[in-house]
């Protein structure tokens, strides 16, 4: 019998029961929540007269609607405020292990605060009504996004009705080049397998380049698994994981800690495990990446040129390139480094952790944002990240360079609050989606790493960070 994959181990240890057709009832350890996808679930629970099965599994925070400046003015948009107030009321009624309301010192993006508070642990099943829940797979946890009906299902039963996905292994072996970050690794993977390449799979990221990443970098890679179509991305827990978790608020303590660490060390794919698909990408082949279109798979190395639809034989793909170029206002065959930008956004659950802030600050230190850049935002992922960055003086570096240093939240990644692009504006963004209208109606998004976004802010156009 072949050995087990990490995915097999995580799955098998949470199956409550299995139907004949393979449908399983999967036990859920951690239920993350924000204000956008939970109100209808709580309402459903109330209407049916049901209770929350185990509210101590809940970690919640408002993050999508919250403003990132003028906190003294509270939430000015009444509809946004009503949604945040609804989360407050629901948590008050049903309870939670952790709740950081708006303006709490530790408030931030749900996918940043759960790990930094030790509420995401190896071996867990983690769900949230948010597709970027894949982030938590960085800890060797089975973590994925769910819809609101499933949020209600988990609230009421502590389980999910699931069919097992297939297992894909993506191996990145070798040393990443200078200026190449976790974000570039993830974008290069999406460029290679496509935005539907991981559909129906759980992706395990492995190889020496992945093992060499910090927890922040691993979270960036797993966060973007969903943009490759995979609900979940996972990385085996190792010494880096254990060192990150030790001493965090909700991490195990004392004898439990030793027992937990011993268990976590078993959470890796066996040497003879079989995967349904294997993709290998040499680390040395990965260069700094920029998306040029309106899907994360429309991505190229920084030295490239904008694709020419005339050279595409497949009519469906050709139409998609033409549409993207029209929306993005780009000319075929132009150099990516000739694209000028209007705004810069450093933040989001993909890239708002301390390491991201450090990388961007290192690039802008002692320099000034270019005159054509109307707005450059640095938005830390949480209160904890913000305070750490300020202790290191990063806020002063950003402000001196002409950036705005904001309060934590999802911000301009999806523009549910006031931080957004106007029609036709072009943004160098460290977020995760370059979809039409994502950062504001008519806005044009180019996804890049924090260092590449920072370098673009200074130059006013994209540059190769290796030559910046």
């Amino acid at each position, binding site marked *: 019998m072949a050995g087990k994959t990490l995915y097999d181990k995580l799955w098998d240890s949470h199956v409550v*029961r299995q139907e004949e057709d393979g449908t399983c009832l999967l*036990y859920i350890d951690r239920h993350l929540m924000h204000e956008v996808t939970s109100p209808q679930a709580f309402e459903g629970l109330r209407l049916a007269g049901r209770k929350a099965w185990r509210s101590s599994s809940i970690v919640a925070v408002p993050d999508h609607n919250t403003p990132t400046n003028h906190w003294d003015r509270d939430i000015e948009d009444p*509809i946004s405020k009503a949604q945040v107030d609804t989360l407050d009321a629901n948590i008050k009624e049903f309870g939670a292990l952790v709740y950081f309301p708006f303006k709490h010192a530790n408030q931030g993006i749900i996918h940043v605060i759960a790990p930094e508070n030790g509420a995401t642990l190896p071996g867990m099943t983690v769900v949230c009504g*948010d597709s970027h829940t894949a982030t938590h797979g960085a800890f060797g946890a089975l973590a994925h996004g769910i819809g609101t009906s499933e949020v209600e299902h988990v609230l009421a039963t*502590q389980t999910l009705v699931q069919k097992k996905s297939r297992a894909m292994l993506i191996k990145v072996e070798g040393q990443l080049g200078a200026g190449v970050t976790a974000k570039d690794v993830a974008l290069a993977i999406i460029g290679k397998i496509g935005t539907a390449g991981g559909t129906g799979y759980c992706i395990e990221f492995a190889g020496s380049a992945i093992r060499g990443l910090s927890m922040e970098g691993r979270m960036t890679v797993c966060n973007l698994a969903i943009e490759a*179509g995979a609900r979940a991305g996972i990385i085996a827990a190792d010494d880096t994981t254990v060192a990150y978790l030790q001493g965090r608020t909700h991490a195990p303590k004392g004898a439990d800690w030793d027992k937990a660490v011993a268990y976590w060390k078993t959470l890796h794919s066996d040497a003879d495990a079989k995967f349904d698909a294997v993709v290998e990408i040499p680390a040395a082949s990965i260069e700094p990446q920029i998306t040029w279109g309106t899907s994360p798979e429309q991505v190229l190395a920084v030295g490239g040129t904008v694709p020419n639809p005339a050279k595409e034989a497949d009519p469906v793909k050709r139409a998609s390139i033409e549409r993207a170029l029209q929306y993005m206002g780009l000319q075929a065959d132009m150099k990516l480094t000739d694209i000028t930008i209007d705004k810069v956004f450093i933040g989001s659950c993909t890239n708002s952790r301390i390491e991201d802030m450090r990388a961007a600050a290192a690039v802008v230190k002692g320099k000034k944002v270019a005159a054509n850049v109307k707005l450059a935002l640095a938005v830390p992922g949480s209160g904890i990240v913000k305070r750490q960055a300020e202790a290191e003086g990063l806020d002063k570096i950003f402000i001196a360079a002409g950036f705005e240093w904001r309060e934590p939240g999802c911000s301009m990644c999806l523009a549910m609050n006031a931080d957004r692009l106007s029609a036709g504006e072009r943004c160098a963004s460290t977020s995760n989606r370059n979809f039409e209208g994502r950062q504001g*109606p008519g806005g044009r998004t180019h996804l890049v790493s924090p260092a590449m976004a920072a370098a673009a802010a200074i130059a006013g156009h994209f540059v190769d960070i290796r030559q910046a």
Partner: protein
Amino acid sequence: MKAFTRLNGLVCPLDRTNVDTDAIIPKQFLKSIKRSGFGPFLFDEWRYTNYGEPGMDCTNRPKNPDFVLNQPRYQGAQVLIARDNFGCGSSREHAPWAIEDYGFRVIIAPSFADIFFSNTYKNGLLPIVASAEIVDRLFKECAASEGYKLDVDLEAQTVTTPSGFSFKFDITPHRKHCMLNGLDEIGLTLVHAEEIKAFEAKHKAAQPWLFA
């Protein structure tokens, strides 16, 4: 949930790949705390030429005449056909809510994003995966004949065109049972409450830190 058994419905063709949930229902409408009322805002940025806001009356908003949903021949459509990777991006269930609220009951595409795919079933909306060749044929036939309808039979798991061409589709027995009968999945799961409790006790004994 609304039950789904059989439907003979007008087809609307949305000839795009990677239709994401941000396009299906833009973020400003996610501020609602209700499950209903999203239909008028379905594909808002493609459908109207002005910016949509929650609570707006859409009857007099300027429409984009080129967008397929605005064309007279597709009014009242119940079957949406689209290209690969439909429903990618955000997990927002507001996307299937908007599609269902507009009046669609079936979506046919060569592939769907995983989270969107499971969300549709919870809302009486049937996603059907067909080969790219079949979907292409449906697009061509739909363009060629006004009033093009498809017959979708969930019990038999078949889709039949007006000319009599028919193909089978897959659905798990569990999902089929829930859809045919319009069942509440939570109720079905709670039948196994004792098993869940037993699992939980065992799980807690093995990894007490998960329950700290």
